[in-house]
C-alpha cells in the first residue's frame, strides 16, 4: 500500500499520483470528506516512515533526524563567492609563511607586568616611552617623538591603502564582505546585483548649473525649477572704478592706471640701460686707455736710445737665459 505513495520525508510530504476521482461528488461536504479520508491515509503513510526512524529521547518528545529532501527547491540567493587571497596571503603562500598563534598578553619588561599585545594599554606603546636615546646620526632640531608618531601614522595609512586595494579586488569578483560597501550605494547586500553609484550633491549642482547656463542667454530667461539655486560664480567679479576725477574713490582709478603704467615703464627702463653692453663698453674703454698709456711710455723710452735697436734689444731681453753667447758672436761678426 505504502509503495503507491511517493514520500519525501525531508519535506514531510506524501504524494499519491494514482488517485483519480471516478466522478466528482455533487455536494461540497462529500467532496471534502473524501479528500480528508484520502489525506488521512497519506498522513498515516508519512507517520509510518517517520516513527520508524531512529530517534533520541528528549523531555519534549522523541527527536528524529530527517533525511535530505528529495524534491529540490530553488535557492533564494546565489551561492556566496569565495574571497580572493589578499596580496599578503599570496606572498605568504609563495614563501611558505604560516600564521602562528600569538598570545593575547605579553610580558612587558619595562614595567614588569603582563600587558595586551594590541589595543589600549599595550606593550611598547608610543605614549609610554619617556626617553629616546640620542644617536650620533640624529639631526639636530628634529623632535624624535613627533618623528615616531609621524612614522606610525604613515604605516597606518599605507596599510589602509593596501586594505582598500584588496577590497577592490574582492569587489571585482563579487566577494565583498556583506557589511562593506564600496562607494555610496542605495541598498546593500545580495550576490550579483550591480551597485548603483549615487552622485554627490556637489556633482549634481555643478551639472545642473552647467545645463542651466548652456542656452544662448546663459539661462537668464529659463523658467526656474522649484528649489533651484542660481549657479555658483566661480571667477572673481570685475570691478569698475568711477572715471570722474576727484578725491578718495575718484582718485583710485588714476592711481590704478598709474600703477600699471609705472610698472610697465619700470620694466622697460630696465631694458633702456643695457647693462651688459654698458659693462662691455666700459671694459673696452678701459683697455684702450691702458694700451694708450703703455704706448706713450715705450715711446718716451725709445727716445733716449736709437729706435733701430729696439727689436734687437727686445730679443736678448726675452731670451737671456740660453742664447747669450751666440748672439754676442753674431754681434761681433
Amino acid at each position, binding site marked *: 500500500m505504502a509503495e503507491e505513495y511517493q514520500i519525501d520525508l525531508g519535506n514531510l510530504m506524501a504524494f499519491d499520483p494514482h488517485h483519480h476521482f471516478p466522478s466528482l461528488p455533487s455536494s461540497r461536504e462529500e467532496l471534502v470528506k473524501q479528500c480528508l479520508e484520502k489525506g488521512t491515509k497519506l*498522513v498515516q503513510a508519512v507517520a509510518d516512515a517517520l516513527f*520508524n526512524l531512529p530517534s533520541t529521547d528528549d523531555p519534549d*518528545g522523541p*527527536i528524529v533526524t530527517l533525511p535530505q529532501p528529495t524534491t529540490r527547491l530553488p535557492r533564494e540567493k546565489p551561492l556566496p563567492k569565495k574571497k580572493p587571497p589578499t596580496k599578503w596571503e599570496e606572498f605568504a603562500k609563495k614563501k611558505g609563511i604560516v600564521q602562528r598563534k600569538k598570545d593575547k598578553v605579553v610580558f612587558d619588561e619595562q614595567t614588569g607586568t603582563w600587558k595586551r599585545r594590541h589595543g589600549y594599554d599595550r606593550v611598547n606603546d608610543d605614549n609610554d616611552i619617556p626617553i629616546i636615546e640620542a644617536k650620533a646620526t640624529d639631526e639636530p632640531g628634529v623632535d624624535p617623538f613627533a618623528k615616531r608618531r609621524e612614522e606610525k601614522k604613515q604605516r597606518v595609512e599605507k596599510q589602509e591603502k593596501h586594505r582598500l586595494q584588496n577590497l577592490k579586488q574582492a569587489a571585482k569578483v563579487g566577494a565583498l564582505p556583506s557589511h562593506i560597501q564600496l562607494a555610496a550605494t542605495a541598498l546593500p547586500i545580495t550576490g550579483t546585483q550591480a551597485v548603483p553609484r549615487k552622485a554627490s550633491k556637489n556633482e549634481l549642482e555643478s551639472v545642473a548649473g552647467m545645463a542651466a547656463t548652456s542656452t544662448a542667454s546663459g539661462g537668464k530667461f529659463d523658467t526656474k525649477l522649484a528649489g533651484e539655486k542660481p549657479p555658483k560664480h566661480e571667477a572673481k567679479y570685475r570691478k569698475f572704478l568711477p572715471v570722474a576725477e576727484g578725491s578718495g574713490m575718484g582718485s583710485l582709478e588714476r592711481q590704478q592706471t598709474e600703477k600699471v603704467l609705472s610698472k610697465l615703464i619700470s620694466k622697460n627702463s630696465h631694458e633702456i640701460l643695457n647693462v651688459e653692453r654698458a659693462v662691455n663698453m666700459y671694459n673696452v674703454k678701459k683697455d684702450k686707455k691702458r694700451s694708450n698709456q703703455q704706448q706713450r711710455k715705450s715711446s718716451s723710452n725709445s727716445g733716449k736710445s736709437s729706435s733701430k735697436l729696439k727689436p734687437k734689444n727686445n730679443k736678448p731681453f726675452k731670451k737671456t737665459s740660453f742664447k747669450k753667447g751666440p748672439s754676442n758672436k753674431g754681434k761681433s761678426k
Partner: protein
Amino acid sequence: MLQIKTPKTGRARREVQKRAPKLVESGKKTLILHGTKTSDVLNTVLSDIYHLKKGESIKYSRKNDSIRPFESGGETSLEFFSLKTDCSLFVFGSHSKKRPNNLVIGRTYDHHIYDLVELGVENFKSMESFSYGRKLAPRLGSKPLFTFIGEGFESVEELKHLKEVLLDLFRGEAVSNLNIAGLDRVYVCTALSSNKVLFTHCALRLKKSGTIIPRMELVEVGPSMDLLVRRHRLPDESLRKESMKKPHELTKKKEKNVSRDSIQGKIGKIYMPDQQVGEKVLPNKAKGVKRERREAKMKGEAKKQKQDS
C-alpha cells in the same frame, strides 16, 4: 580615493549580515501585498496566509497600482520590495472583472522574479468560520505535513508547478532534526480537475493505536478553498539551473575502502604495500653496526693475519 561604507552600529552590521547570501539557507520570508482593488474574500485570504506564516511573513496594507507581475515593467516595484524586505516569496492579491479574486504566488531569486503562478480563489472558507477544540489548534511555526492527491500533480504542467510553489510557500524552515510530538498540521491539496485544486489546512490529532505509530486523524481548521490555475510562468532554464546549484563544499566526498555492516558496524579495508625488508636501512645505526667500521676492522684483522704468517 574609494569610499567604503560600513554599518555604524553592531546591530546594523548583524542585520546586514543576515541578508548576505549563505551557504545553507534557513527559510524564505514571504511578502504579502495587494493591488489597487481587492475583494472581501481576497482580504481574508491574504490575512489567513499571513497568520499561517506568522513570523516569517510581512504584510503590506497599501494599494499598489504599479505591480503587475506578469507584465514586463510591472515587476520593478515588486522586486524592489523584495530587496527591501529581504523576502523571496510573495503573494499578491488583486480583484478585477476579468480575473476575480486573483492570487499571484511567486518566488524570487536574487531579488528578481523566478517564477509565477496565478490562481483564482473559489469556495473560500476562512479560518474563523471553522470551530474546533482549542487544544487542537496548530501552534505557531510548527512544521507542517503535506499531502498531494491526484494524478494531475504529475501529469499536468501547471499543477506540477503549483505543487512545488505551494510546498515552498508553506513548508517553513528547512530542518534536519524534528520533534515528532510537535507535528500538528497538514496541508491537503487535491487535484479536482486539470486546473482546479482543493486546498485545505487541517490539524493533526495523534491517537493511540497500540503500536508505536499513532493513528492519525485530521480535523479541518481552515482556510479551505478551491484554487483555479489561470496563468503561470516557469523559471528560465538557465536561472533554474543556477538556483538549484548545490554548494561544492557540502557535497560529501566519496568514502573509499569503508563499508558498513549491520552486525559488525563500520568496516575498513587497509592496504599494506610489500615490505622490502632486505633493502631497508636499519633505524639504529650503532657504531659497531656501521659498515665502514666493520670493513676497516676486517681489513685490520687480515693484515695482522698476514704479519703473523
